[in-house]
């Protein structure tokens, strides 16, 4: 009787989760995978094969876009880490208990506004007739309006801004767990500030660094709005390619193949990152 209740409650608890996994993750992926193997011969006539993938390899613009998306996302990840680490260290170790919550809230604040609005904020600032251009003209640094939008620097800046929180949160939580005495012991035993950072703080924070980097890389590589709106036609982001295939060219087969390639590519990069840092998913993202 007791056992049955336990089993029933387990089933009831797991049901929504199982449904979610099945309906929204597994079925679409299987569907997309099958779709990606389908080749159109003529109207309502299909054959199955790797044609869509071969087409991707034969067309440099496609895989160039994927590589560009990957390398720019890596750059975004590195920048987010470089900026996020000192911020996280300050919140976790330097700030007093009272201001900690407030600082954390400040990092969270941008997320209260939708991504679209935030990106429009950047547009208002950076467009030719925008605030920055106008200000620089007023103080006389430039003598005619300058367009700050639609270049790689702006895209990267916008992405770093969007993903920053996802880097800071895991870093703060790992650094919070670090005993101050450990840093003091590092100095006490003769280490310089740089040695303590390199040999003690960074190795200790490694799970947080890797977890944050994985999340940030995935978010950057898979983002759509920010690169499109800030980068315009020049952004050549891979998600834009996928969108084009599905919506503009109505070529679902090749769009599906691209989607799968993006998933495989980011998975490989994450796997490489884990191997290089000697971490595993269990010690980083899935850390309790």
């Amino acid at each position, binding site marked *: 009787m007791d056992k049955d209740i336990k089993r029933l409650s387990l089933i009831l608890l797991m049901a929504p989760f199982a449904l979610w996994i099945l309906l929204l993750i597994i079925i679409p992926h299987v569907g997309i995978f099958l779709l990606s193997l389908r080749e159109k011969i003529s109207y309502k006539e299909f054959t199955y094969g790797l044609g869509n993938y071969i087409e991707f390899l034969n067309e440099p613009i496609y895989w160039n876009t994927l590589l560009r998306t990957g390398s720019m996302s890596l750059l975004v990840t590195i920048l987010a880490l470089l900026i996020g680490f000192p911020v996280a260290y300050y919140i976790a170790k330097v700030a007093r208990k009272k201001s900690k919550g407030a600082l954390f809230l400040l990092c969270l604040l941008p997320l209260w506004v939708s991504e679209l609005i935030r990106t429009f904020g950047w547009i208002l600032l950076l467009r030719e007739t925008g605030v920055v251009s106008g200000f620089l003209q007023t103080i006389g640094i430039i003598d005619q309006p300058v367009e700050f939008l639609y270049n790689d620097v702006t895209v990267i800046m916008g992405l770093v801004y969007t993903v920053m929180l996802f880097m800071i949160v895991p870093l703060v939580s790992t650094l919070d767990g670090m*005993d101050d*005495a*450990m840093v*003091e*012991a*590092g*100095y*006490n*035993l*003769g*280490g*310089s500030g740089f*040695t303590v950072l390199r*040999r*003690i703080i960074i*190795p*200790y924070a*490694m799970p947080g660094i890797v977890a944050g980097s994985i999340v940030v890389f995935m978010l950057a590589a898979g983002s759509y709005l920010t690169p499109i709106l800030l980068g315009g036609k020049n952004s050549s982001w891979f998600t834009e390619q996928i969108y084009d295939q599905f919506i503009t060219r109505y070529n679902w087969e090749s769009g599906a193949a691209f989607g799968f390639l993006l998933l495989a590519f980011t998975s490989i990069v994450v796997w490489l990152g884990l191997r290089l840092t000697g971490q595993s998913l269990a010690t980083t993202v899935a850390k309790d």
Partner: protein
Amino acid sequence: MEYDLTCESVCKKFGEFTAVDDVSFQIPSGSFFSILGPSGCGKTTLMRMIAGFESTTSGDIKIKGNSVLSLPPNKRNVKMVFQHLALFPMMNVFENIAYGLRCQGVGKEEIKRKVQDVLERVSLPDVGSKEISQLSGGQKQRIAIARCMVLDPDVLLLDEPLGALDLKLRESMKIELKLLQHQFNTTFIYITHDQSEALVMSDNVAVMNQGRFEQIGTPQALYHKPASAFVAGFVGDANRWSGRVVEGADGAVKVQTDGGLSLVGTAAGGSLSGSGTDVEIFVRPEFITVARAKGDAPAQVNGQNHQRGVVDSLLFNGANSRVLVRSTNNQLIEADFLLTGGTDDLKPGDAVDLSWSIERSACFQAARG
């Protein structure tokens, strides 16, 4: 005499609060020095100033005769064993010990030799490749000490490192620490709130209270000749009564306790200001002799206090057993008594005579207010 560490009128203020107040002391080379005090007395602040993690408000700290105030913590040859040891969990034992040597830029072969050497000295020769989490509490302790000692420090600071261990292990680590100190022949400064740790291990103990040193001396001196009521009460057990002087100011003084005991004590910690002075009287339980009551009145012996009473309860604790005696005027007095388990042991309700010498009844002038 050469001094490894000298503190001259060291003060530390946090805003209005004075954590360390005009502390001066010298520690001879190769000795085991303890700073004993209740929590919040400023002992950890003092230690952090010696290590360089806190600045001094005034005063000077000298190591081997040279002032270190201007040196950052990583340039001082003072190493520290932290309260929770602060071993680096992401490094194995070898790397933990090698860390300090690497910082000094010692060569690879030299590091290997030195680490192995220090591991043998703490009698853990085979743990080099183990992870920190695989060590037991006592082993971690020894690795934390080895990590400091491999750098050959002038002074080793220990901040209550035994606090986290269980009782049995703590007892054996006390002896081990003392032996290690002898072996390395380095000056150890040991911070603790546990008087038995301080008494067992130290050559000299400083008792600290509210930022000041109350007394510095050998464990025996602190125990038998406490300089203040605080020291008498903090170090060791004692029967503690408050009372008033009836007669005398120096040497033997007649006192009456608030509970109505009248006894003769010895003025301690300077002379008292005559009759009517409020005093605190300390008598250690081991100096009170218990005997079964015979006859009508207790036999009077010169130089002794006497008190007749009834055994209230027995506090059995092996060799440290005690009896709690209720005196005729309803005061409880603790006295050491060996309970052998035989038929002649005292039982609650037995009438007893207590006696203790006048010299062993220390009377301190009570703090005003």
